[in-house]
Structure formats: structure tokens, C-alpha cells
């Protein structure tokens, strides 16, 4: 979906969140190959870590973090998001990561608290 453009300093910082997410993914699945028995733990670990980092920032937001991990076998995967919110205050960020055996797509949605 379209990029979130935001001129407001104190609100959603897309770049910072982007980097934060990448670090979280790397730390959970960094050097691993896709494993069906572990993937459950990985997705849970990734979303929890991302959320913890976001909440630490102490900004007045509610957060939703989603993560999809897919094994690389040549299948097609497509994701889409649509949001009905306050475009001046709310924002999202999606990171696509991959290694030799899997893809990982993480999305963060931040909704301002009034």
C-alpha cells in the first residue's frame, strides 16, 4: 500500500520503526533455516520483541504487530493492508526480510490514542 507521509515530529517515525523491526527479525531467525517445528516459536518471538521495543518508546499509541513466515518453495505470496483511521496521526510500516530458506513479512500499525 502507499507510504505513510507524515510531517509531525512527535508522531509515528517510520524509519526508526523499520530499523527496529529488522533488528528483531535478525535476532530471532537470523541464521536459521526454515523449520516447521520452530516456526511457531519464531513468529511469536518476533511479534513480541517488536511490540516490546515499540512500547518502550513511550509514545501515546496503540500498536498491532503482525508477522508472516513462509518457506521458500516457489509458491506465490501476496499481502495487502487497508486502514480506516486518522491519517494525520496514525501510521504503519511493513518490512520484508528473507534468507536462503524463508521469507518473513512484518507489519506494524500504530494508532494514536486521543
Amino acid at each position, binding site marked *: 500500500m502507499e507510504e505513510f507521509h507524515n510531517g509531525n515530529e512527535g508522531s509515528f517515525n517510520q524509519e526508526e520503526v523499520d530499523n527496529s523491526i529488522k533488528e528483531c527479525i535478525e535476532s530471532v531467525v537470523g541464521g536459521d533455516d526454515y523449520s516447521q517445528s520452530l516456526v511457531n516459536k519464531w513468529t511469536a518471538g518476533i511479534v513480541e520483541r517488536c511490540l516490546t521495543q515499540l512500547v518502550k518508546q513511550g509514545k501515546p499509541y496503540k500498536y498491532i504487530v503482525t508477522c508472516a513466515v513462509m518457506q521458500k518453495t516457489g509458491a506465490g505470496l501476496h499481502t495487502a493492508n487497508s486502514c480506516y483511521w*486518522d491519517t494525520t496521526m496514525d501510521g504503519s510500516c511493513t518490512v520484508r526480510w528473507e534468507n536462503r530458506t524463508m521469507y518473513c513479512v512484518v507489519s506494524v500499525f500504530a494508532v494514536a490514542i486521543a
Partner: protein
Amino acid sequence: MDDYQTEEESVEAAIGGNAYQHSRVNQWSTSVVEQCLSQLSKLGKPFKYIVTCIIMQKNGAGLQTASTCFWDNSTDGSCAVRWENKSMYCIVSVFGLAI
């Protein structure tokens, strides 16, 4: 929940009888989220909504999704629908946050 039916109907209407096609999947996922969102906003409730859709071709690959939310448990909620046909899976999630 009303949302569940809304989501299922939207998916069925957008991609119902089709087989997975790389050239059209972009259009389908967009259409699914847009239809879901417009149905939800028609409900007229004081909520902000986030709708996500994942469409995956069936070829034996493993897919795992997870989501976690930091919100107000008493007023906010989510709903996920898993739909499939012979050639693809479609997972739609709706998150509703009270204003």
C-alpha cells in the same frame, strides 16, 4: 461476530471461483481489503479499522502468521478468517480499535 461474516463474504465475492494467478493476485488482495473495509465502515460504529489480507498459492510451502496487539482489551478486538479453494489460501484479519 458480524465481522466474521463480513470478511467471509468479501473474500468469496472478490476471489470466489478463481484459480491462483500471479498476474491477478495483486488486484484480488486489494479488492478483498477494500470491500471488507467498506462493509465495516458502513456499520457506523466508533472504531478505527485495520484490515490485512494474505493470499498464498498452494504448492506445499509452510506458512505461519502471528500478531500481537497493545491496546485496550475491554474495547478493542480482532477477527481472522481463513479461506481456501483448490489453488490458494487466503487469510484476512480485521483489527478494530475504539475511538
